């Protein structure tokens, strides 16, 4: 015989002398994020560590947790501000103050999609995979549209210290400006090295870069 | 023995339309494996199609034909119930012959 408990807690309990199914365990007053908590637990028990991709990658930081909770919904302004400030605080700058590197290396980093997948060689440098989501150099036709076009990034904003600093910050941690942004936090998560970020900045802000032609 | 071909032969007006899907790796001999060694060439070199023992298509293929090749062609004549026989031979001298009935 099975009893169906209606309401916010949906479960099926076999009453034939067998233990109640623990997976669908019901509290008398389930928490609002009960489904969220169960989903997280189910995720963590459904993945296996593989190479460099350890299970720790499923542990969320506060930003990831909040952004997952809100899903498609807009964040309340106070929450967004809090997330943005916390992410701004993570940004580190080079000791010598030089934010701009070599755009030719930057283009290679923008083209490369390798790095941090369990199928990737951890000894090889990671790419930023910019072209997966963005237009950059007009010569590259194979570009994605998940993010806005970065064509003429430097030219449009002016070749100033402010522009260079903004580019650095965006790449290091884009959520400093837009809570729950889709852009990976390249500096915060140590996806790119300091020099690599300089090179991508150069790709965006160097007047000689193809992005600004 | 290689996997069977999937053959469809249909009478369309006064012609027979034949569509064949062959199962074959069609390795070009240009690719390298993860260790850097060249994967040996292995591809269909000859294709022959007969209708009532008369050759209606003969082909010489090379590595440009892709894996699991699909070929579609028509020949004049043919009647429902007739047999169409298809044979391929590859560079290892392996071959496969399958038959279909014209519908």
């Amino acid at each position: 015989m099975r009893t169906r408990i209606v309401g916010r807690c949906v479960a099926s309990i076999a009453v034939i002398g067998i233990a109640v199914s623990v997976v669908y365990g019901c509290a008398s007053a389930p928490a609002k994020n009960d489904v969220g908590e169960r989903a997280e637990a189910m995720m963590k028990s459904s993945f296996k560590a593989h190479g460099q991709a350890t299970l720790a990658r499923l542990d969320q930081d506060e930003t990831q947790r909040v952004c997952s909770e809100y899903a498609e919904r807009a964040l309340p302004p106070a929450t967004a501000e809090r997330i943005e400030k916390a992410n701004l605080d993570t940004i580190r700058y080079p000791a010598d103050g030089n934010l701009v590197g070599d755009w030719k290396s930057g283009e290679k980093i923008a083209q490369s999609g390798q790095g941090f997948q369990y199928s990737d060689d951890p000894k090889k440098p990671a790419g930023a995979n910019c072209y997966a989501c963005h237009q950059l150099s007009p010569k590259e036709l194979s570009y994605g549209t998940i993010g806005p076009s970065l064509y003429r990034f430097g030219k449009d904003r002016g070749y100033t210290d402010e522009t260079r600093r903004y580019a650095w910050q965006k790449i290091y941690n884009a959520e400093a400006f837009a809570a729950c942004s889709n852009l990976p936090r390249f500096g915060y998560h140590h996806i790119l090295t300091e020099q690599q970020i300089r090179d991508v900045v150069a790709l965006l802000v160097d007047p000689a870069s193809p992005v600004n032609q | 023995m290689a996997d069977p071909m999937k053959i469809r032969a249909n009478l369309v007006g006064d012609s027979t339309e034949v569509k064949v899907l062959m199962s074959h790796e069609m390795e070009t001999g240009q690719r390298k494996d993860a260790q850097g060694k060249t994967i040996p060439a292995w591809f269909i070199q000859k294709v022959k199609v007969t209708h009532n023992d008369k050759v209606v298509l003969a082909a010489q293929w090379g590595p440009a034909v892709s894996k699991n090749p699909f070929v579609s062609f028509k020949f004049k004549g043919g009647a429902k119930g007739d047999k169409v026989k298809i044979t391929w031979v590859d560079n290892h001298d392996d071959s496969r012959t399958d038959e279909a009935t014209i519908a």
Partner: protein
Amino acid sequence: MRTMIRLAVAAGAAAVFAASTGAALGESTADEIAKYREALQDGNPAELWEARGEEMWKAPRGPNKVSFERCDLGLGPGVVKGAYAQLPRYFPDAKRVMDLETRLVWCMVRQQGMSEADALKNTFGDGSAKRSDLEALAAYVASQSQGIRMHVALDEPHVHDMYRLGEKMFYYRGGTHDFSCATCHGDDGKRIRLQDLPNLTKVEGARKAYTTWPAYRVSQGEVRTFQWRLNDCFRQQRFPELAFGSDASIALTAYLAGRANGAEYAGPAIKR
């Protein structure tokens, strides 16, 4: 008169040139890829997997020498017609919501007498010699639902629960790159490089996407299933590896298959 014709020809040529460069490139590229897919649909190599799968379905297998004709995919033992269109579903004998592959593995273990390790030995083929029985079986079973409207039983409590869990997982941001499924599949009209991305947060997107898996992936040289698709997405999201037939894989499948309800199943399809 001749001047007008020359000008008209020049204007026409210029229009064609303009259409194939710059901003219009995106649209025409997508159109061309669609035409390529349509041309390849005839003679889809997936048919070879379907034929192999059909043979496997009917043959006695495993230590118990039992065929899949005893395997109940939800419509009765051995019934394949329409089975894929109503999966995932809750199976009381297994006390679990199962998708096609987990159900096939269950039959292999419980009915055919295989060990779970043996049943899961080759989940995904490697593009040449190492072939997967599960991929061939999935291609066959799925082909028997072609033209049938998806109808996952979302009002069944266990399925409903998995659907809600899958929905949560869809938005789970994680890993080194902060990706969730929604990062790529959360908006209309987006593409990654030149690969168009279905918006899975909308029912129309889910319908178009879910009903074309399993599919022969030309670049893989294999028929790939939805278990494979989820596994490969998570790899690219820099997550650890999604275990085959895991609860999360079934929850996400229940979510996306459920949202595809009402759409005609169109697989096995062919993709790049």
